[in-house]
Each structure stands twice: as C-alpha cells, then as structure tokens.
C-alpha cells in the first residue's frame, strides 16, 4: 500500500491522468481509505481550477493601441 507522502508526490500525475494502470489503481485504493489524502487531492484539484481561471486581460491600453495600429496597417479588413 502506498504511503501518504508518495500519494502527494503523485497527486498531479493522478489529476492529469498521467499514471499507468497499476499506479493509478494503487492511488485509488489508498484514497478509498485515507481521508487526508482525499482532501489533499481535492485541494490540489481546486488549486488547478483556480489557476485555470486566472487568465485576465492585463495589457495596458496604450500598448494595445500601438499594436492595434500596427494591425490596421498590416491587415486591412477584407469586408467593408
């Protein structure tokens, strides 16, 4: 049976479906009996969800305007 430390080391491979069949089974077996590791995995999953949502428009308007100008020069609209 895997130890808790090993489960945390494999947590992200488990979440990314990146473990082979046998390892995956061992992890799942441990999780059925260990609520601490279950909590850890859920927290890692929640963390990844937050990371995924962290994208936001952060470019200063001035920079965007300059690039938009370059875009207009190079890529004239094809439909008027």
């Amino acid at each position: 049976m895997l130890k808790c430390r090993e489960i945390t080391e494999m947590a992200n491979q488990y979440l990314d479906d990146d473990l082979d069949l046998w390892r995956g089974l061992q992890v799942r077996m441990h999780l059925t009996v260990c609520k601490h590791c279950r909590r850890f995995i859920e927290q890692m999953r929640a963390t990844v969800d937050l990371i995924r949502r962290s994208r936001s428009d952060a470019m200063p308007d001035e920079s965007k305007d300059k690039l938009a100008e370059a875009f207009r020069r190079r890529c004239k609209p094809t439909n008027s």
Partner: protein
Amino acid sequence: MPEMGNGRRPTHPPSGGFLTESSAYQRLREGDEREFRRLVGELHRSMIGVARGFVGSHATAEEVVQETWLAVLEGLENFEQRSSLKNWIFAILINKARTRARRESRVSTFSDWESLDGGDEPVAEPGRFDAKGYWATPPVPWDEVTPERIIAGQQLLTHVVQAIDALPPAQRSIVIMHDVEEMSPEDICGLLGISEANRRVLLHRARARIRRAVEALMRR
C-alpha cells in the same frame, strides 16, 4: 504519452483551446481588429510570465511581448497552420525571449532552468509526514473555495495570480503553458526544449507551491 490508466479524464486536449483556431485565425486574416485586441489582451499575462522565464525584468518582458506581436503580424499571411496559432505565437515569443536573454548575457539553457527552479525543493509537502510517510500534519478543510471569495482584502483569484507571479521562473512558465493556456505536454516540451520528466516535476512543484499559498490563506 500519457496513458488512460485511470480512465477518469481524457488525455490532455490539443494545444489551442479557444484558439482552435481557424475561426480566430480567419478573423485576424480578415482584419478583425476586435479579435486581435481580444487575443493580445487575453494572452498578455501568460506571455509576460513565460518571457520572464528567460529575461531579467518585467520591462524587458513587455518589450519582448510587443516584438512578438509585431512578428506575428509580419508572419500572419504565411502562417501555414501546421501548428496551432497559440503554439506558433508562443514559439515566436520564446525565440525572442531567448535572443534577448543571450544579448543580456543571461544563459538560458535548461540546466539554468533547473537552478532557477530552486532545484533542491522537495516534491512532497515539506515537514508534513512522519518517519513512516503518513500524515503528521494533515491538510485542514477549505471552506468556500471560489475565485471571488475575499480573503485578506482581495479576491482569492487575485491571490492565485500573485502566487503564480511569485513562482521561480521555470515553474511559472510551465504552469502558465500547461494550466492557464492548456498547451499539450508534447508542445510544452518541444517549445522549451525540456524532457517530459522535467516538465512533470516543474508542474508538480508549481501547483504544490500555489496550493500551499492558498492553504495559508484558508487558515486565516
């Protein structure tokens, strides 16, 4: 290549996500300025984060990102769509960042990434286990994990953005490319010139650090 060992989730989606892609590319070719503005805005934070994996300062990273977009506009007509649009943009970005880093005499081979990564950092949660490898200090429950939840005066999502910014450069680049931009492991390894094993370790360390940052907030 990841196997479907657990059968719980599909293997990693192909690079591109929302940029799949003919639609975004088509709109750009048709001169859709709003699409261009949307794209540069949405990718900005990620591009800065990856550029900073190579160059010394935020200001230099901003310059590299600007140069990248100009190069994208230059090459748009001839882009053959053999890779995804996003992959292509990041390939240009990484190339420009590497060139700039060399000019600044900052060596940017993977061995330097390992040292930039804080190479001695444990993969497992430090100090939380007993001698036998079981939890000595188990994780405490997290209440109300929503992006908008206010902790210590700002949204949890803002804390996460700051935690990503605070990562060592190599970890930051990997977590941005893998989790924020949903690029495939193969594409990430190809673009950065790193092995799958290295990618895995960097991603795990990055996510583990951010989890610990969130945990510290949840304990308040």
